[in-house]
């Protein structure tokens, strides 16, 4: 709950350190080294010494990713060129314009910013949802007629196309 806020008051917050360590374990980091102004947090895991370049960088990112990581809902973009199309509203997800027709997109479909990827019904209104990014659909994260809430991840898109 208290992940990483008020750093100024809280370098020694055991809660935050626990969160960091849990992240280290989760992502198998061996070392975390965070510095800001007069503040520093350095954590080393396991026996092996590793140079604190890349990994430390990721670790430093991790806390900021906390809100998403904490979300019960789906995956985070795993690499920079993979983007997530999220639900802009609360409602029911439809993968096709009507029961008889095909899905708007399949894994492998190429999409542009304005291609409709699904419909979300809210208050009896059917809303076309555009991709808003270009690329190739690499994963569909919800099922047809599934209920979705705000910013629920819907599709994974590889922006390299």
């Amino acid at each position, binding site marked *: *709950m*208290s992940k990483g*806020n*008020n750093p100024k008051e*809280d370098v020694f*917050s055991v*809660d935050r350190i626990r969160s960091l360590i849990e992240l280290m374990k989760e992502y198998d980091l061996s070392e975390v080294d965070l510095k800001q102004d007069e503040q520093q947090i350095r954590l080393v895991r396991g026996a092996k010494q590793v140079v604190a370049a890349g990994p430390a960088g990721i670790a430093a990112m991790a806390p900021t990713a906390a*809100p998403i990581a*904490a*979300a019960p*809902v789906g995956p985070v973009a795993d690499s920079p060129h993979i983007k997530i199309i999220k639900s802009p*509203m*609360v*409602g*029911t997800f439809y993968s096709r314009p009507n029961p008889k027709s095909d899905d708007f997109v399949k894994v492998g479909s190429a999409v542009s910013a304005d291609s409709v990827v699904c419909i979300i019904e*809210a*208050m009896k209104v059917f809303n076309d949802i555009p991709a808003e990014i270009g690329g190739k659909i690499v994963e569909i994260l919800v099922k047809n007629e599934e*209920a*979705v*809430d*705000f*910013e*629920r991840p819907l599709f994974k898109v590889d922006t390299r196309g």
Partner: protein
Amino acid sequence: MYNRILIANRGEIALRVIRACKEMGISTVAVFSQADRDSAHVRCADQAICIGPAKSIDSYLRIDRIISAAEISGAEAIHPGYGFLAENSHFNEVVRSSEFDFIGPTPEAMEKLGDKNSARSVAQAANVPVVPGSDGLITDEEHAVRSAKEIGYPVLIKATAGGGGKGMRVATNEQTLRVALQQAQTEAQAAFGNAGVYLERFIDRPRHVEVQMIADLHGNACHLYERDCSVQRRHQKLIEESPSPFLSQKTREAICEAAKRLIIEVGYQNAGTVEFIVDQENNFYFIEVNARIQVEHPVTEMVTGIDLIKTQIRVAAGEPLPFKQADVKLHGSAIECRINAEDPNKNFQPCPGLIKSLFVPGGFGVRFDSHAQAGYTVPPHYDSMIGKLIVHKETREESIACMLRCLEELQVQGISTTAAFQMRVLREPTFIAGQADTKWVERELLKT
């Protein structure tokens, strides 16, 4: 009875409603903003649906998303809590037209009572005393001067769309009236987009007394006696209690009956509160109706033994009131302190942040309604109340002693709270004597 209820609110009141539902065997749907993902009301509900980012305007005030959440979760009714959309008659209408029950009054009653002017007419029709004032809105300066003469100085200028004291002005004579009128109208226009103002007699050292009402769909209405909320700072209630320490039994009966007449007059349904001001001679005047459950409802629950939230749900579902007026009895004395994340030494400025450690007061006759715990971060986006501390004892003297003990015991580390200031109030002879009026705190305790 309902199988599933959606709670369109957050914090302690969302938790309060969830608790009532669970005890009634009703499944619960919480809605939450991204700032509240880890909040207790989300954890305790059977389902939780994210409806937007932290800012209320994009989440807890988004009617469309709340209705959609009710649709996808299969809820049958919506409880609005207090604040946010609770007294928004449009929301009320949309809920009903989307074929959900709204746990509260009808939109019609809400609108009639929402406008101070029409509420005043309702009161007069029900033969409930109102503060002597102008009939309807002030048309022009001369009209104001004429009405002021009838009413008698000093007069108060109030915005018809106002609340929380905004846009109020006192005029002690014709000259100050003319000046104050323009200021009040400009202020009202700015604050509420409605320049309409009216006049009423200014009451010296008024007490704030409100009567809790509950009515079913079958025309039965009961009062649950009064709450005294005179201890306020800038119209924000700090301490509430029941029964009122200064009302005579005669006035108590009269004010409760008046409230009931008004509620029946307007065909009110579900829970509501009729607010009065009472002058030093125990004359009472109707002010307004709060068409919702209120923050301070627990003090009434403690002294009557009646669960207001459960009763709200039952009557909304069409059940008749489970008690008659004669069954409603006052027992003992209850006091509530609102524990706010505010710093009394910095003019009560809100201080959200991480609660590093929390010790919750307990014991006989103690109730703490809160969504907070150690490790919880009070978000900056919403009101600063982190809990309500309520005590119930045989006598008011014991209640005061118990509340002082609890406020001492309450330990919140990481953020400032109002607890220390409330301890100070509870030790003041004026409060102990039950002599506090709505301006007392600012006049005596915060004078600089």
